[in-house]
């Protein structure tokens, strides 16, 4: 609660270890507030949050957590190396370990030529990169990234994506909060959609979807009767020359459709199910924009 406004209500989330988890929702849905509650920055007016089996305000559990805030800002009088050393020391890292880790991490985020430069001379993209590095300095088990690619150019976005995947490969869990759905689609294993503080849908992006798909078929000898017969499995069908576009409610009917077309004497050259893009799915779940 913020005053009389309910920011997050009845939110129940489970994130699996080792997955890249996307947290999606429109502006004001309560995403950032939820992340802040999980990090102990905001105290819930009721209810509890557990992270890695411990209450979210447990200080010790934070040794296993990394966090990149949205629009990362820090003391601009520090150099990039000093910033990472400071955060490493706050995480309890030994000086010897930091001597190895800091230059390696600065190299990973592509800032080696700027490592002794003060943050006040950094561009927004460079700040975002060094912010990501401070989140990873202590090799956390769980990493919260709030809009990690905002302000980054395409090379920067690729770098962040690669770093997220390398974190997953070493067994870390990544909790990603982003508005850039195309990035989420490429990066995440699973996403949930949050609306007015509650989870309204989830989707496993690595599994083949058993839900609504758009089917594109390229075939010869498609008669009007054959197309009409497809209404048994499809909600809509449109024939344009040799190209047939169908909408179905479930992927489970795809084999039946293919068998039907072949049995009807059609020569099938292409049979491509296209899942809804994350953006389409987002719009479908969230509904139309009614203004802020």
């Amino acid at each position, binding site marked *: 609660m913020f005053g009389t406004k309910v920011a997050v209500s009845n939110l129940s989330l489970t994130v699996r270890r080792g997955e890249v988890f996307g947290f999606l929702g429109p502006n004001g849905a309560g995403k950032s507030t939820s992340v802040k509650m999980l990090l102990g920055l905001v105290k819930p007016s009721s209810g509890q949050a557990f992270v890695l089996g411990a209450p979210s305000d447990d200080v010790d559990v*934070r040794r296993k957590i990394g966090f990149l805030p949205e629009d990362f*800002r820090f003391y601009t*009088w520090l150099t990039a190396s000093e910033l990472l050393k400071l955060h490493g020391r706050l995480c*309890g890292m030994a000086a010897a370990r930091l001597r190895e880790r800091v230059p390696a991490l600065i190299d990973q985020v592509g800032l080696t030529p700027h490592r002794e430069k003060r943050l006040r001379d950094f561009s927004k993209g460079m700040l975002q990169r060094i*912010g990501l590095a401070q989140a990873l300095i202590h090799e956390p088990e769980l990493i919260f990234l709030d809009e990690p690619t905002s302000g980054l150019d395409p090379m920067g976005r690729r770098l962040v994506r690669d770093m997220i995947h390398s974190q997953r490969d070493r067994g870390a869990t990544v909790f990603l909060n982003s508005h850039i759905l195309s990035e989420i689609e490429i990066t995440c294993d699973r996403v949930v959609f949050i609306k007015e503080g509650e989870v309204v849908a989830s989707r496993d992006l690595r599994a083949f979807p058993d839900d609504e798909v758009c089917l594109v078929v390229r075939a010869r000898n498609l008669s009007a009767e054959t197309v009409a017969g497809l209404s048994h499995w499809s909600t809509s069908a449109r024939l344009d020359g040799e190209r047939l576009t169908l909408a179905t409610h479930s992927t489970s009917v795809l084999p039946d459709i293919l068998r039907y077309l072949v049995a009807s004497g059609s020569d099938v050259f292409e049979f491509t199910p296209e899942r809804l893009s994350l953006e389409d799915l987002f719009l479908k779940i969230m509904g139309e924009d009614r203004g802020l």
Partner: protein
Amino acid sequence: MGAWIMAGVTFREAARKKILWTAFLAGSAFLALFGTGMHFQINEFTRHSVPPFIRYQLEAAMLQVGFYAVDLLAVTMTILTSVDALSGEIASGTIQAIATKPISRWQVLTGKWMGFAGMVAAYVAAMVGGVTAVGYFIGGVLPHHSLRGTFLVFLECLLVLTVTFACGTRFSTLTNGVIVLGLHGLAFMGGWIEQIGAMTDTPRLVTVGIVSSLIMPSESVWRRASFEMQSSFTRSLQFSPFSNASAPSALMVVYAVVYLFVALTVAIYHFHQRDL
């Protein structure tokens, strides 16, 4: 450990952002001015053959004026440098990257507080030491109980610093500055009212002054410091900003110490409870 890291980074910030050096530079300019003034005054005393006892007492009074100016500078520097220490970082979101590290919020706050306290201690020691050195080498006078006086000026600054921190956990930078300066102004006025009350033997005025000192005891700590450092002649002047018609008791110093710890506890509590 976390608190010491935060103290170190706060102290380094002051040095790196040139706050500390600018304060020392301004302080050095003040000491140069003070020394020049004292030098010319002593030349006048010599020219007019002022008797040694009177001359010594007047120089001691001048020394007290120097300490008064140092006190004003130290309190002003304390407020100006620390006013956005917490509220500024909370507003900009900078605090989030620190508060999510394995360090308790009380360690973040006390670490920053210790960093500023170290900076203020260095400043007070240098400035009081500077005025004392000028007084000794140019005028040949030394303050009475100089260590006790230095400690009390430091305590006054620490008190103002802690109140600034306590308000900074709750209010914006601007509001915080207005509140702390307002409180110190109240204490300053209360001090004067108490002096006038003591001089004119008006108990009600003295009571008003004491009440204002209870609300914000910073000025009464300065008046105790002044009382400790001044000579018997300066004391006999009674009514001036640099001397006391009514010196706060040792109990008031104890009250100021308790006030400081309560303010620090309030700061820690608010900082722990608030959303960042």
